[in-house]
């Protein structure tokens, strides 16, 4: 470990953030040593990324911050910063021992060893602090592990869905009781609420036939709003007591989905444009087949005129009056020779 540690430029804020957390709780901390541990970790994790796309070093720093807030000692903070280097990088335990001493290296080794610990021992450690210390050799190794999990749970949304569930269950079964046993109540409480919220959200899968129907129906809505309506409706469905009522609710929603879609696709503009384009194209094509170019053009012009007129009437606030005006205009037509257009901008009046 004689390589010079490069301190990446974006990293200085990370480090100063961490030192800020430490200074709040323990002003007498050995910041030089912690800075060195940070630089070593940043050096070894250089170029690695978290799932979120953040530089990997943000993770050990976040873990160290959680521990700094909990008032843990310098060795624990150094080991927290370095807890992943032996596993994920070429850095060796011997190198760590040489650079940071037996205490820090031993803690890192103990944290790594915890992942391979037999399940029954881990389960025992959850409720009994003596068993916990026997398992890890050092209480602080467990403390680091709990903080590690807390940060993972905080950033869980970047994982695939199945993994989120797995990690959340693990957190509830093992890490929450372990945190309580270790006296880290605040961390335990945060872990518990985050993990159980993830599981609760997952439980809200469509489940019933009505739920599946509703979830499928949202495909007709604009992409950006699907998730919201899906969650909203499934939540409503959840509190309806009987299957019959759920089915009724689902059928009602499906019956109204057209109205909702038109509302959400910004006052129907998209639908209207698409449907008139298809209609016009169809008319043009049939004209072309029936009588060649001239007929096609005449029919297209007529179709555009009719569509324009219909839209003009339908979009009006006072449809009856528009319709009256229209009928009136058409009736006046024979007198004034030419076929009048209901609106100047309407093409097709020459056809």
């Amino acid at each position, binding site marked *: 470990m004689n390589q010079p540690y490069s301190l990446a430029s974006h990293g200085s804020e990370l480090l100063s953030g961490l030192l800020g957390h430490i200074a709040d709780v323990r002003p007498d901390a050995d910041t030089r040593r912690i800075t060195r541990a940070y630089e070593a970790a940043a050096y070894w994790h250089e170029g690695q990324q978290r799932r979120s796309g953040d530089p990997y070093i943000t993770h050990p720093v976040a873990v160290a911050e959680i521990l700094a807030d909990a008032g843990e000692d310098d060795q624990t903070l150094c080991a927290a910063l370095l807890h992943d280097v032996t596993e994920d990088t070429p850095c060796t335990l011997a190198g760590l021992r040489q650079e940071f001493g037996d205490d820090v290296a031993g803690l890192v080794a103990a944290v790594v060893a915890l992942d391979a610990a037999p399940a029954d021992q881990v389960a025992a450690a959850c409720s009994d602090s003596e068993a916990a210390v026997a398992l890890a050799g050092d209480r602080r190794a467990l403390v680091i592990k709990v903080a590690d999990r807390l940060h993972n749970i905080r950033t869980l949304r970047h994982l695939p869905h199945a993994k989120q569930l797995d990690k959340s269950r693990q957190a509830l079964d093992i890490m929450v009781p372990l945190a309580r046993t270790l006296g880290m109540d605040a961390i335990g409480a945060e872990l518990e*609420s985050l993990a*159980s*919220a993830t599981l*609760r*959200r997952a*439980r*809200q899968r469509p489940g019933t036939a009505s739920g599946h129907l509703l979830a499928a129906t949202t495909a007709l809505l604009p992409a950006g709003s699907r998730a*919201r*309506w899906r*969650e*909203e*409706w*499934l*939540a*409503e469905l*959840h*509190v*309806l007591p009987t299957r019959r009522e759920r089915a009724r*609710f689902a059928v*009602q*929603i*499906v*019956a*109204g*989905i057209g*109205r*909702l879609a*038109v*509302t*959400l696709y910004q*006052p129907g503009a998209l639908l209207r444009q698409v449907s008139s384009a298809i209609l016009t194209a169809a008319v043009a094509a049939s004209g072309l087949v029936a009588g060649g170019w001239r007929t096609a053009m005449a029919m297209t012009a007529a179709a555009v005129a009719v569509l324009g007129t219909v839209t003009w009437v339908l979009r009006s606030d006072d449809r*009856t*009056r528009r319709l*009256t005006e229209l009928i*009136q205009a058409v*009736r*006046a037509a024979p*007198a004034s020779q030419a076929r009048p257009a209901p609106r100047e901008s309407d093409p097709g009046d020459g056809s």
Partner: protein
Amino acid sequence: MSRNPRMTLQTQLVLRVMLDKPDAHYYGLQLREETGLPGGTIYPIMARLEQAGWVTSSWEDPAEHVTEGRPRRHYYRFADKGAEQARDAVARAYRPRKQPRPGFGVPWPDLPGMSP
């Protein structure tokens, strides 16, 4: 925001229910029960009221639905001036039309160009 929503009878019904307690928040199923309208009608109306800026919506606070052990609700409530606008619109919708429109039972006025 966009223009005012059309005051259909169903929209008026929803607004009148909400105006009973203008500061409360409502969820879709609750409005469905209180208005007796089908769910498929409620949600498009709420979407339109939201677009018009009369109503805002938000997800329920975790503290509430977690203690009640159910998924979070989506709540609707009147926006800043939403209740005022809604009250005006409902009142206006009730006012009888000043001029009867031509149509059933109302004689057609003399329209220019209608004589044969």
